[in-house]
C-alpha cells in the first residue's frame, strides 16, 4: 500500500508525513510505504488544491489538513 503525502515541502506537509510514519509504526501497518509527491502538476492531476493532502494508492483521502496519526491510521486500516 502506498501512503502518498501531497505537498510542495511546507512545514505542514512535513508534519503530516511525520504523523503518517507514527501511524504506520504504531498500528503495525507493515505493507505501507510513504511516498512524497512534490510536483505541483502531479498534485493538480489528483485534483488537490490545498496542501498537504493525503492519498492511499492514488485515492485522495484528505486535503488541506494535518491529520492526526489516529485519523491516518483509520484510513490505512480500512484500506488494507
Amino acid at each position, binding site marked *: 500500500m502506498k501512503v502518498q503525502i501531497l505537498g510542495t515541502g511546507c*512545514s505542514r506537509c512535513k508534519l503530516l508525513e511525520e504523523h503518517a510514519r507514527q501511524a504506520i509504526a504504531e498500528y503495525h501497518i507493515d505493507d505501507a510505504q510513504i511516498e512524497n509527491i512534490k510536483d505541483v502538476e502531479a498534485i493538480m492531476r*489528483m485534483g488537490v*488544491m490545498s496542501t498537504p493532502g493525503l492519498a492511499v494508492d492514488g485515492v485522495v483521502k484528505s486535503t488541506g489538513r494535518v491529520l492526526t496519526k489516529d485519523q491516518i491510521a483509520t484510513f490505512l486500516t480500512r484500506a488494507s
Partner: protein
Amino acid sequence: MWQHFSDWLVFGTLGLSPKSALGSALDFFIYDTGKIFFLLVIIIFAIAFVRSFFPPEKTKRFLEKLPEFLGNILAALLGIVTPFCSCSAVPLFIGFIEAGVPLGVTFSFLVSSPMVNEVALIMLWGMFGWKIALLYIASGLVVAILSGAVIGRLKLEKWVEEYVYKIRGSETAIETLSFKERLVYAWGYVGEIVGKVWLYVLAGIAIGGFMHGYAPADFLVKVAGPGVWYAVPLAVIIGVPLYSNAAGVIPIVKVLMEKGMAMGTALSFMMAVTALSLPEAIILRKVLKPKLLATYFSVVAVGIMLTGYLFNAVIK
C-alpha cells in the same frame, strides 16, 4: 475583567504607581496579552470550524460559474472563509485558472485571503475595538475586489506561465467531515496558529507597552500625522517586508496611533503587512511572469495607498 486583574497585579500586588512609566507599561502589557490570547484561542477555533465547510476545491466551484464583477465580490468574500496558506498558493492558483475562474477573480481571492486573516482581525478587535476591525475588513474587501477587477480588465492572461494552461486537473470527491473531525481540525488549527504567532504577539505587545510608557505623546505627529502626505506610501514600503507579522505589528501600530500616526496611514501600513508579502511573491513567481507579478503588487499597493489617503481625508 482583564483590566481589573492587570491593575490588581501591577498596582496592587507589585505596588507600582499607575502614573509611573514602568507601572503603566507593565499594566498595558499584562492587560493586552491576557485579552489577546483569550481572543486568539476562541476566535481561531470558531473561524477554523467555519472554514472546514469551505475547502478551496468547493470555493472554486462557486466561482467558476459567475460573471466577472460578481465573481470578484464573491471571491473576496470567500477569501475570508477559505483556509489559505501561502505555501499552497500555487496549486490553488492553478486550480482556479484550470477550472476557468477568470484571472481577475482569482486575484481578488489572492488579495483578500491573506489580508482579511483571522490573526489580523483578532489583533485589531482586541487592541482597537470592533469598529476598526470592521473598517479594516470592509476596506480590505474593497481593495481586493477592485484590484482583481482592474487586473481582469487589463487582460494579462498572456503573462501567466504557459504550463499553467496545459495542466489538466481532475475533480476529487470533496470529503465530508463529521462534526467531530471538524472540531479536531479546528483545535489543531488553533495549536498551529498560536504556536506560530505567540512570540510575535508577546514581542509586539512588549514593544508597544514600552513605547506607551516611555515615548512622548506627540512623538509621531510631525512624521506620520494626518498632514504628512508621504506618510502613507512610506508606511506601505515599510509594511511589505514585515510579512505575516500582523500579530507583532498591530500592538505597535496601536501605540503609533496614540503617539500621533493618522488612522489612514495606520490602516495602509497594516494592509501592506498582511496583503503584500515577499515570500508569497517568490512562491507566485512559479505561475506568474515577472510583469504580472509586478502589476499585481503595484495595483494592490496603489489600492492600499488610496484607502489610506481616503481615511486620512475623512477622519480628522
